């Protein structure tokens, strides 16, 4: 059977409840506030207009910062959250390994709990009976089968949950972070089992922050930010794009939703230092990159006192630090740029300067972040 997941204009908006901001003067007010302050309701969009198709054989990486919507999307895919608009078509049996230590009954025996969790997963009782010994052996607790669950250590419970959840091979596997639980011995076993399940699944969706792991397992990637799908494609460009997004957010100093309304190219960068070569000419040092692959930004300009001056000369150089620290993809992102600024007699005259970057001279309109040192130099230069 062809296994696939298809989302069309999928959105999810949920009401959230906000507690009113209040200043409490003493503990009595805190207690009263907790008792009589009903939370306010507000709709929040968690996922916005997602469109994607995942086909048989795809191993999809979900990339995004904490709170971007990865886990929410996984919960939509496993059927817990119903989209508020659009549609989602899933072909194939799904197994989600999102939270495996839940849904137990502490006072029931281990055997009873295996049946409880198994039936909750939709397994038939004959199937569970058949696999009971395997599950117990895998969790390393065969002698505990008739003991009550609460007598197991939390590590043993986790192992049991893992053993049950991975006891069946389904078509689609949803993973929130790669799971590694328990002691060294169990970890090896769990890794093998998980690897096995990943290989046996027709579709795998893995949300993780570990780029190395995602490269090993996935062939496709999806970048999510603030509930919107920014990029979907092969894994390498997806990871590259995600790292660019992180660097862009750092360079723009904002964690707000990114505006890609003019296409996917966004320029970002950083100015380290400025030197006054001769009066009327300065040289800036920094780095600059764009979120579009193979399209490094070409233009730099300085806006000073409402006048824009295009760089008279730009030379590129290798900046490993930008690649390492901020995940910039283009190693040749460093620049030295010379500007003719008549009227600038000292660095202090640069007060209020904006450095703009862009793909071409006409589109040099994105402000680059300036280093604290540069800002201080300009300011103290004026004072001195």
């Amino acid at each position: 059977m062809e296994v696939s997941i298809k989302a069309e204009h999928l959105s999810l908006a949920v009401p959230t409840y906000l507690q009113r901001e209040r200043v409490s003067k003493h503990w009595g007010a805190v207690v009263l506030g907790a008792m009589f302050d009903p939370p306010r309701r507000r709709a929040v969009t968690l996922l916005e207009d997602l469109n994607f198709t995942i086909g048989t054989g795809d191993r999809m990486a979900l990339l995004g910062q904490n709170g971007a919507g990865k886990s929410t999307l996984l919960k939509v895919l496993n059927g817990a959250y119903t989209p508020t608009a659009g549609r989602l078509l899933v072909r194939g049996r799904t197994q989600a390994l999102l939270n495996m230590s839940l849904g137990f009954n502490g006072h029931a025996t281990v055997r009873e709990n295996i049946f409880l969790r198994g039936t909750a997963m939709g397994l038939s009782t004959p199937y569970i009976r058949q696999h009971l010994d395997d599950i117990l052996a895998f969790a390393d607790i065969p002698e505990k089968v008739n003991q009550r669950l609460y007598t197991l250590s939390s590590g043993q419970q986790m192992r049991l949950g893992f053993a049950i959840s991975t006891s069946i091979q389904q078509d689609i596997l949803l993973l929130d972070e790669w799971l590694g639980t328990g002691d060294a011995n169990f970890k090896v076993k769990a890794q093998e089992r998980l690897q096995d399940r990943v290989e046996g699944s027709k579709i795998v969706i893995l949300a993780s922050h570990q780029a190395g792991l995602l490269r090993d397992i996935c062939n496709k990637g999806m970048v999510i930010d603030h509930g919107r799908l920014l990029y979907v494609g092969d894994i390498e460009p997806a990871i590259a794009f995600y790292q660019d997004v992180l660097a862009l957010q750092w360079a723009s100093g904002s964690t707000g939703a990114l505006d890609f309304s003019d296409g996917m190219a966004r320029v970002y960068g950083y100015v380290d230092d400025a030197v006054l070569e001769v009066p009327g000419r300065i040289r800036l040092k920094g780095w600059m990159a764009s979120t579009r692959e193979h399209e490094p930004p070409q233009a730099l300009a300085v806006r000073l006192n409402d006048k824009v001056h295009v760089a008279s000369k730009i030379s590129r150089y290798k900046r490993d630090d930008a690649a390492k620290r901020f995940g910039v993809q283009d190693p040749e992102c460093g620049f030295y740029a010379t500007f003719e600024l008549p009227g600038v007699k000292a660095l202090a005259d640069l007060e209020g300067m904006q450095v703009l970057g862009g793909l071409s001279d006409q589109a040099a309109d994105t402000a680059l972040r300036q280093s604290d040192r540069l800002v201080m130099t300009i300011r103290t230069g004026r004072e001195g």
Partner: protein
Amino acid sequence: MPSEARTKDGERTVAPSLISEISDIKKDTGLWQLSHQRRLFTDLIDSLRNPEFWALSAWLDIVVAYRRSRLGALWLIMPSAVYIWGVGSVFAGLWGVSVTHFAAHLALGWTVFTVMHSVTVQSTGVLFGARSFIMDGRMRLTDFVLRSMAKSVFHFLMAMPMTALALVIYPHVQPLGLLVGLGALLIVLVNTFTAGVVFSLAGARFPDIQEVVNNVFRVLFLLTPIIWYPAKMPASSLRGEASRLNPFYHLIEIFRAPILGEPIGVLSWYYVGILTVVGVALATFLYRRYARLVPIWL
């Protein structure tokens, strides 16, 4: 298994851009579609076809409760014995009737009331309690309502030996009435289920409901002819009028009166008929509209 894929496209489209539902059949057929609504009736049928999960979890809830005790299952029978014979003889004396008469009246009323009471109260918290299963994508909420119903019905059956004993010593049991009573019990269960659905959704959205229901039931118990005879509170009195607004009054009357050969007003049958229709309609409507929001509320 995939052969019986039930795609319900087209016929149930809500709006051009929205797609109709295919209920939680992914586990059975592997083909499913997420959409905006869930259907009570479809879910109920699916739940009844696949009883393993809710039956097992209900059963575990019951056995686990008595596992620590020495006398074990004996405690399942004890409450009914204490209530029917203990409370029964006290109130029989109070009303000046013999225990042989009053025990049957009390037993039938109390057992049925307890089913409705415990399902309604439990269901207000049942979805919250099943949060981990729901978040795991197990969205057939009827499973969780049936779980609390199964528990209550089990306790009802455990009270049957004492109830049977009370009926044996009752002089005027109507054999035909037992059949009517059985039918009435079915109607009671339907109403219990719809109440369970309505209150489980309400309880998931408004946690306060649990307390409200708990408190309301204290009054409702006294307004239901379990420890008293309907004749003692005639419809003309204010209390009598209030008690006749109480749905449990009528649900118990249609079950008990035919068996014991007590007089029953036509009004009770009308009341229960309307209640059932309205209850089913309300539960269907609320389930269709709000079941999908439950994971978000929890």
